[in-house]
């Protein structure tokens, strides 16, 4: 067994995901199956392999893409963005209290 019920609860907490008791059991079983499957990567000797950290230009040999110019552009979208917010108190997003008195 790769993953316990406690592991699932810990991961759900890290991911800010509420799970029902049934979901905890279901995900434990399914994640266990998937994690067992991905163990096949352990068959490979990766001692001298560098991780692929960059995909862009991976095949072109060009590792120094040009940076764009640093120019100021207007971005006046605050009203539009706040209009779509679940609870806005301009110019802020309002959320439940974070800091106790």
């Amino acid at each position, binding site marked *: 067994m790769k*993953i316990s019920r406690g*592991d*699932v609860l*810990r*991961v*759900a907490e*890290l*991911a*800010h*995901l*509420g*799970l029902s008791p049934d*979901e905890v059991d279901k*995900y434990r079983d*399914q*994640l266990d*199956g*998937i*994690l067992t*499957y*991905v163990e*096949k*990567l*352990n*068959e*490979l000797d*990766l001692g001298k*392999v*560098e*991780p*692929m*950290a960059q*995909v*862009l*230009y*991976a*095949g*072109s040999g*060009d590792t120094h*893409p*040009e940076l*764009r110019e640093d120019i100021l552009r207007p971005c006046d*979208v605050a009203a*539009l*963005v706040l209009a*779509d*917010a*679940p*609870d806005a108190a301009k110019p802020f*997003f309002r*959320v*439940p*209290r*974070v800091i106790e008195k």
Partner: protein
Amino acid sequence: MSAPTAWTVAGVRAALEGKKVSARELAAEFYGRIDRRNGQLNAFLTLSPERAYAQADRIDAAVARGEALPPLAGVPVAIKDVISTRDIRTTCGSKILESYVPPYDATAVERLDRAGAVFLGKTNCDEFAMGGSNENSAYGPVRNPVAPDRVPGGSSGGSAAAVAAGLAVAALGTDTGGSIRQPGAYCGVSGLMPTYGRVSRYGLVAFASSLDKIGPLAANVADTAAVMAVIAGHDANDSTSAAVPMPDYTVNLDKPLDRLRIGVPEDYFGAGLDPEVKEKVQAGVALLERLGCRRIPLQMPHTDYAIATYYIIATAEASSNLARYDGVRYGLRVPGSTLVEMYRKTRERGFGPEVKRRIMLGTYALSAGYYDAYYLRAQKVRALIARDFADAFQKVDAIVTPTSPTAAFRLGEKTSDPLQMYLSDIYTVTGSLAGVPGISVPCGKTKAGLPIGMQILAPHFNEGRVLQIASAFEKAGGSGV
């Protein structure tokens, strides 16, 4: 009753220029078709007639003034619902964004708009593009127009079904591990995954940022190329957009395939491949040989590790990207007495089972003590898979494989076992991990009449070659091999 007109990009242009039809009439015709078929297919989640008719009227005004028309003038298109559209609801197939309306267009959408396309609406997809059957949409599955008891593939299932059913001339999809190519194969249309960085991701709602690509689906290769020519090219708004010169994708479509070296990797024709699919794709390769290609057997030794690699990297990136859905700034909010309780309740109610599963897997793979064992290891194997491709492209000009191990499966057939669903991505995730371009083109049918797809992959930034081979194949009768 005669069959409805099979409109193409060139056909729309000729009809507009010859004043046989107006862009407005054409849009109305497509909305009529959608009205008749979408109840069954569920391909569209949102229609955008206000914007479509405004776009059509602009084209009709240009025709009336005798102006030169832009490349996609009046062409009715559909846009996958993970791509941002200004003032048009964009749900990503998720309840968490059920009423989200983006304030801007994605770059690919903006370029389609400038090219004169008419936006019919937004297409259904697996939630946040996570799935291979379209059954993970919070708004119900899409049905395959060829066989309505079967899936259209996914995650761009709505886009593929809309094109296959004649409800749009072309569509935008997105491909992270096969999500354009596999539904293209299942619905019998052509679908192109561009090179990573070729089409801007600005405005694409992120799933796995090192793998996501926007690309076109259409009923034929020429239309696929026409849309690709419009949406591709460098964009300063996407730091992973490539500053590599753009060829004209449409000029080589009639060029013969003289002596092109076609690699056929043995690893893609082994266990798990449906015999009917195998037979047709081998017949497809034989057709390419008759067209002048040379067939070269290949070994791609790390193919068998691609699924494990992909599902670690994609879920790790997803767990990070989807952290933004917390009920604070947009989308669903479920109230809680504390901030963290609000996050947890919002995400519990807003996300569906597959998205939760992937967030869990990705969070686990990135968590303290497991990063080296999973994510770092997967990034190393990804380098080996990319090297398989680089080595292969020393010997061949393109690689040809089946797109998917089977034709479209039945609705509900694979939903109970997520790992089995993941394993059916075997032939598409490799190219995704390497970042190379690939297309799926129709390559015969099963005895039951289900479309089969053949995948053509080429080196980075060689979409032109992919389209050239696919076009020659199509013109030589590839869809009926």
